[in-house]
């Protein structure tokens, strides 16, 4: 900086430093201070939010079980080219490690992992361990574990060992990383030649669930748009005094807890609930109708919960539309319908787009409401993520499904960011 010639930088301050450099310095200080103010929150979110999610998502490609429990077999299986059956030495190693792991009580972990690929693998592995132990007692360790015909021995223990499928499953579970969970999250699997194939139809569920998640979100978004547009229009065109009053009717549900609103619909819609009773009293239908724990209940409750998120962005755009535009259109001879379509509607589109994307993004991740007012056939991706964490404790699959859901949300969030800009998200 000192090398700058005095007359190149414009005016020079009293201390001999050119003004331009002083300004740059001050500007840099401002930036440093700004970053310093953001840093605490940034670090906080990294530690409590971003890193946990990334670590969890990593589980979808991690494959530690076989490597940890049967390390030498895993190495031997990785060397096997996948043709025919594994070489005899690999089978010897495998037999020895199964016996050791069973004695060390770590076999369960490997068995659980292999059972994900083929149910029944767990019991087969434990049975194999027990029979090998007995054979060692009878024939001696060397005779069993150094045997020349290991495959025969395995088939004697359980004839399923004669199927190549089981050996290739062990091979596929042997590397420390795998794409298998990600494949399963879109209903694909490796066959015995490690080619990617669709899984059998009775097992395929996730693509259907993903499709269902998108359909439910789309229907909810459409219904919210249909119900939200009229009231946003009404609020946007009323004088402020009246709209301020009416908007409270919109904000009360907005501020009311999601769980409270879901409970309210459960109470209203159940067979002995208020709506069935009233309808039967007025003779609309004779028997209590099943309104809840099905798709209908899910739609009603979700639309009710998400409607304010649709109305608020549309309202804030409509409030800014000059009412004289419509009057001008009318005075130029447009009838009210064509004036509305050609003049008013195009101006509302930013609000409509923001509302539609927001409601769609929020619906994709819904869990509580479908879990309480939906039936088994109305559960969305979130439900299955929670299911694999809580019930099957299959972290790999839960992480893969999370990644799938996250990718869907990110695509629409990127669109939302294009349209609205994250910095421009407003509340109220």
């Amino acid at each position, binding site marked *: 900086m000192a090398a700058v010639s005095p007359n190149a930088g414009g005016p020079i301050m009293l201390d001999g430093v050119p003004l331009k450099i002083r300004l740059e310095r001050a500007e840099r200080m401002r930036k440093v201070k700004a970053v310093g*103010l953001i840093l605490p929150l940034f670090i906080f979110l990294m530690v409590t939010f971003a890193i946990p999610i990334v*670590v969890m998502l990593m589980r979808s490609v991690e494959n530690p079980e076989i490597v940890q429990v049967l390390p030498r077999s895993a190495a031997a299986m990785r060397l096997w080219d996948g043709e025919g059956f594994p070489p005899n030495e690999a089978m010897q190693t495998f037999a020895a490690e199964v016996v050791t792991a069973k004695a060390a009580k770590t076999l369960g972990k490997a068995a659980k992992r292999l059972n994900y690929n083929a149910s029944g693998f767990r019991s087969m592995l434990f049975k194999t361990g027990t029979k090998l132990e007995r054979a060692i007692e009878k024939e001696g360790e060397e005779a069993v574990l150094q045997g020349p015909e290991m495959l025969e021995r395995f088939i004697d223990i359980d004839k399923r060992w004669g199927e190549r499928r089981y050996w290739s499953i062990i091979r596929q579970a042997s590397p420390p990383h795998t794409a298998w969970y990600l494949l399963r999250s879109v209903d694909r699997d490796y066959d015995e030649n490690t080619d990617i194939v669709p899984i059998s139809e009775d097992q395929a569920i996730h693509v259907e669930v993903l499709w269902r998640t998108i359909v439910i979100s789309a229907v909810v978004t459409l219904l919210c748009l249909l119900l939200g547009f009229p009231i946003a229009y009404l609020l946007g065109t009323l004088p402020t005094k009246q709209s301020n009053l009416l908007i409270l009717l*919109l904000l009360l549900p907005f*501020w009311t807890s999601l*769980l409270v609103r879901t409970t309210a619909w459960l109470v209203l819609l159940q067979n002995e609930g208020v709506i069935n009773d009233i309808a039967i009293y007025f003779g609309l239908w004779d028997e209590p109708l099943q309104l809840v724990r099905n798709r209908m209940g899910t739609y009603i409750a979700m639309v009710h919960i998400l409607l304010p998120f649709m109305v608020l962005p549309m309202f804030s755009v409509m409030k800014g539309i000059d009412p004289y535009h419509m009057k001008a259109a009318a005075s130029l001879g447009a009838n009210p319908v064509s004036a509305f379509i050609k003049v008013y509607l195009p101006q509302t589109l930013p609000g409509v787009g923001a509302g539609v994307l927001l409601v769609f993004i929020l619906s994709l991740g819904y869990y*509580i409401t479908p879990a309480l007012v939906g039936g088994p056939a109305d559960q969305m991706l979130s439900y299955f993520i929670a299911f694999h964490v809580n019930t099957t404790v299959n972290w790999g699959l839960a992480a893969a499904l999370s990644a799938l859901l996250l990718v869907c949300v990110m695509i629409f969030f990127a669109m939302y960011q294009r349209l609205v800009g994250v910095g421009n998200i407003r509340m*109220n």
Partner: protein
Amino acid sequence: MAVAPYATPVEKAWYYTFRVICGLIFFFLIMPILVIIPLGFNPVPFFTYPMEGFSWRWYGEIFGDSPISILWQRSMVNSVVVAICATLLATILGTLAALGLTRADFPGKPAVMAILISPIMVPIVVIAVGMFYFYAQVGLVSTLSGIILAHTTLGVPFVVITVSATLQGFDHNLVRAGAILGANPVRVFRKVTLPIITPGVVSGSLFAFAASWDEIVVVLFLASTEQHTVPRRMWSGIRELLSPTIIAAATMLIIISILLMFTMEWLRRRSERMRGLTPS
């Protein structure tokens, strides 16, 4: 938007039809919340009208001294503690970050903003599962601190958004004026910046409070019975046997929502008035 005197009969008919349609939609929005409140005072455990009398029985189940009441009361204490701690943390961290975000442009600012906002966009189950997995390894599962940290994360974007919005209309010459008049930066912040951004800070913290107060999914994963909050207790109740006690608890939550809503509205209108934005 009164109907114009020169409107044709068709326009008049449409005007009233439209109002009726809007009325029905507002009815749909409000009805479920209002209809369940009285059912919490029904002396018998049925969820329909006509009610068979009036009783405080179900509120007694919450505030009494039976084992279930004690669970309810503990969940209320937990809810309050978690919400207040999370709100304080979120408000401080969020306000500082918003000040930084509006102070200067720096490379990667949109990306940083997107990260700070992402807790409201990432599906809550993904957040909860990620936290459960990670917090389990550092011993934060089944602790109130774990839930407080999680709820701070969920509430912080609201603070960042509202405070940044308030700061967008903020005239930085006021800070320079303060400095010229001899105040140090801390004094300028306390005497000039803070009073101006307070409404934004308060509304942001109310949003953060509501986010924690209503939250259930993270609590489902991170809390054991000791740390149950009111929504978590309601969840068990709804899953097992829907009893009017749940409605009594829901009614209390609704009352708190109403209080929060009116405070927000009052703040919003006050700041509009002060900025002279309210048209007649």
